């Protein structure tokens, strides 16, 4: 609750700081300080310290898992702001407004990972997506950005409509919006309940871009300014996944036979579409957006398996996937064009940046010693208890993903430097990037540092 209150407040502070402070990098420091305070408050709440005693029974429940998930998300947001925050100044003159919207999105993220009522789920998702429509279209003169924004808006509102219809049907069957009320053990699940559940499944698949509801994702991620793509593809996506798991775990655990096969089909299709289409992309930005669909397929295995291992794994997956993708995007933002050729010979000019990038890609591909490997391992271990075939299929698809991730590594190390315009990385940025890469390796070697926090 601490971080939720302060994140909304800090959004307002950011709006005023745009008026009061003329220098944009100072505004950015205010935002970084805000996220640091949020992390501090969230950790303090894990220790049992509350800013205000507010009773949110039946609406929000900040249990230990939700708080740890939120801390991980906030840490990822902090790293994102430090690595790529400066790129916001290049989009337009309203840097403070973008940061204010960012804080409102954080407010929504903290809500969806701790909701206890379908009302809060709906509000949280809307608080996340409405500012994202604006951020997607923030490059106002760029037609691609406009188009991405309109597409995202129309499909986002459409899927919200489906989500609401699902909630209304469930309310009709159960007479309550609380997750505990929806998971009623006495009443039988009639067709009203089951159709509502199916609509919720479809709507959540839209929001996490699971195939066949993924078609908006590449266009939106490609058209949006790269700084905001980085945010959407990482922090937002994993938070909505946490909501997905929480919803189906808390309220539909009894009907698992009715939805498990559907989720298995969604996961298999998402893995297939994401990985196979990513192979054929010519732009690294677009490849990364298909890769985010493919990684969503892996995270769907957590929804499919729905056991303790899956929840631990989702936490680790959220951390490693977000860190690796934020790191890659931070480098991509500094490039002039996003083709694979732009990475040619990067290793000879910037060996440290190339080394960090290699670790990020290895982690996304799930190569041992990196955090990504253990995250995938946890997902597969969780799903293995339910279905061997789905696990085998996901392993094949993970092997396919190695192909397109290694294309970038190959370009960096084994291709001669092209005639593309020179890129500059300042030493501070390089050190930070190496720090994130080291963090990924540490998570790969000692996952208990993160997961062990769940059991204190």
């Amino acid at each position, binding site marked *: 609750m601490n971080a939720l209150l302060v994140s909304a407040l800090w959004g307002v502070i950011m709006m005023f700081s745009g008026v009061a402070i003329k220098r944009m990098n100072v505004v950015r420091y205010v935002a970084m300080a805000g996220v640091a305070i949020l992390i501090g408050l969230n950790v303090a709440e894990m220790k049992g310290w509350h800013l205000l005693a507010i009773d949110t029974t039946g609406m929000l429940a900040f249990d230990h898992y939700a708080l740890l998930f939120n801390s991980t998300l906030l840490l990822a947001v902090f790293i994102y702001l430090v690595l790529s925050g400066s790129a916001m100044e290049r989009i337009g003159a309203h840097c403070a407004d973008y940061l204010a919207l960012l804080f409102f999105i954080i407010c929504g993220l903290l809500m969806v990972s701790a909701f206890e009522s379908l*009302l809060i789920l*709906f*509000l949280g998702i*809307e608080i996340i997506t*409405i500012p994202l*429509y*604006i951020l997607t*279209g923030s490059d*106002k*003169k760029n*037609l*691609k950005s*406009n*188009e*991405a*924004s*309109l*597409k995202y*808006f*129309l499909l986002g*509102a*459409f899927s*919200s*409509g*489906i989500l*609401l*219809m699902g*909630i*209304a*049907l469930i*309310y*009709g069957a159960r*007479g*309550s*919006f609380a997750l505990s009320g929806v998971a009623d053990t006495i009443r039988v699940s009639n067709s009203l309940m089951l159709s509502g559940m199916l609509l919720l499944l479809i709507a959540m698949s839209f929001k996490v871009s699971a195939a066949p509801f993924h078609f908006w994702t*590449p*266009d939106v991620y*490609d*058209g949006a300014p790269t700084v905001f793509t980085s945010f959407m593809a990482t922090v937002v996506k994993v938070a909505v996944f946490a909501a997905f798991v929480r919803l189906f775990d808390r309220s539909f655990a009894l009907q698992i036979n009715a939805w498990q096969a559907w989720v298995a089909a969604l996961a298999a299709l998402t893995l297939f579409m994401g990985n196979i289409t990513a192979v054929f*992309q*010519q*732009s690294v930005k*677009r490849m990364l957006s298909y890769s985010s669909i493919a990684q969503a397929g892996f995270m769907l295995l957590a929804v499919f398996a729905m056991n303790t291992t899956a929840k631990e794994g989702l936490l680790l997956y959220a951390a490693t996937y977000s860190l690796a993708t934020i790191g890659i995007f931070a480098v991509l933002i500094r490039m002039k064009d996003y083709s694979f050729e732009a990475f040619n010979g990067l290793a000879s000019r910037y060996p440290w940046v190339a080394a960090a990038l290699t670790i990020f890609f290895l982690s996304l591909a799930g190569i041992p010693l990196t955090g990504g490997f253990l995250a995938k391992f946890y997902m597969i271990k969780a799903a293995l208890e339910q279905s061997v075939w789905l696990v085998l299929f996901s392993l094949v698809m993970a092997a396919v993903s190695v192909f397109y991730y290694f294309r970038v590594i190959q370009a960096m190390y084994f291709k001669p430097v092209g005639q593309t315009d020179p890129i500059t990385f300042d030493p501070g940025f390089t050190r930070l990037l190496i720090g994130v890469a080291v963090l990924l390796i540490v998570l790969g070697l000692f996952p208990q540092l993160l997961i062990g926090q769940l059991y204190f």
Partner: protein
Amino acid sequence: MPINYYLFLSLALFTIGMVGVLTRRNAIIIFMCIELMLNAVNLLLVAFSKMHYQAAFEAGQVAGQAGVDGQLFVFFIMVVAAAEVSVGLAIIVMMYRNVHSVDINFLNRLKH
């Protein structure tokens, strides 16, 4: 009236909205169809709210609070829909300034 009538009416409105979103090509009309979907949900929530109140009343419980949360939800949907309208129309206006059209067939720059 039985609850089925309300259910069928709002499902019909919802389907009209959904078909409109999938078939129309004008961004404003698609937007209106989305609003129709949201309002179908509002109607259904109010009907269910009344139904749960009636059920609690007939079961002899103290029916004061039963079904109130359904009506509360409707207010939240209306507020969120209003926020969405303001952002959505701004996006459509931004698009119109650049391409002088609100036809979504123009949305093909991102296809590769």
